[in-house]
């Protein structure tokens, strides 16, 4: 088994404080089967969207022009920031900084709530402007893909609540760290999917 360096108290500096551990799966194997499976499904969604966009580029471009790019950009930044909070929180759990870790998971949750709020406002604006699921192919894909992603965000926020609770109680059982890492990995996947959905739906020319 290969051994690789990890950061400990000194945050990655190659110093005496650096420890070595065996190559490490972040979370249970099962969560990674789920994550990779989910990513495969979304990869198919991306391809379906690009294929049908090529069939009717003018319609897709005209519909895309009705979207608010600022909402999409801000939501991307919110999810990236939430992921960063989750990284710091998970490092905090490893160092037994329970309250700090819980606070950081809480901040990630707030970013998720902000994303959700903007998404609801955006949906409301679009529906009020007369753009619904059946308006055209672009809007059908827009609502299905962003809707499915939104479901992932809501589940992810529930996972973050569980991580707040878990981080406060500390690492008691041998599997606790894997549970926390698995939850964190799921939240990062939510971020990954949006990173591609954003340019695909809002920006592509």
């Amino acid at each position, binding site marked *: 088994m290969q051994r690789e360096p990890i950061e400990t108290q000194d945050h990655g500096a190659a110093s005496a404080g650096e420890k070595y551990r065996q190559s490490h799966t972040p979370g249970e194997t099962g969560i990674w089967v789920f994550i990779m499976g989910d990513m495969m499904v979304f990869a198919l969604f991306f391809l379906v969207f690009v294929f049908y966009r*090529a069939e009717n580029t003018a319609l897709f471009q005209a519909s895309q022009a009705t979207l608010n790019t600022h909402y999409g950009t801000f939501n991307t930044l919110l999810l990236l920031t939430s992921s960063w909070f989750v990284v710091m929180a998970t490092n905090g759990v490893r160092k037994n900084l329970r309250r700090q870790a819980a606070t950081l998971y809480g901040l990630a949750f707030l970013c998720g709530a902000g994303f959700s709020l903007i998404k609801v406002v955006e949906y409301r604006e679009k529906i009020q402007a007369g753009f619904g699921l059946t308006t055209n192919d672009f809007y059908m894909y827009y609502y299905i893909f962003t809707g499915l992603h939104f479901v992932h965000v809501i589940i992810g926020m529930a996972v973050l609540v569980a991580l707040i609770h878990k981080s406060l109680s500390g690492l008691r059982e041998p599997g606790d760290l894997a549970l926390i890492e698995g939850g964190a990995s799921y939240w*990062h996947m939510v971020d990954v999917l949006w990173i591609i959905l*954003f340019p695909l739906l809002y920006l592509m020319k």
Partner: protein
Amino acid sequence: MNDLIRHYTTGVWLLLAALTASLWWLGGGSATSGVYATVSLMVIAFFKVRLVGIHFMELRWAPLPLRLAFEAWTLVTCLLVLAVYWAGQT
């Protein structure tokens, strides 16, 4: 808290935010032609995915098969999306 912020992943987060700003600029229409702008957009977006996977999801410490699976997903999905997009342009 400072201890947790002074970690190299803070730099990764700043890079991801800067790349997001570049996407916003490229998608705003002030850049080059549509095809080149789209290719740039998607390459930058998939590069962001790789940054999140390797540094935030900690796949750089993961067993090689898991890391390779993620890297393969990123590369193959990016190439397929660009290929289908390119085919639609011709």
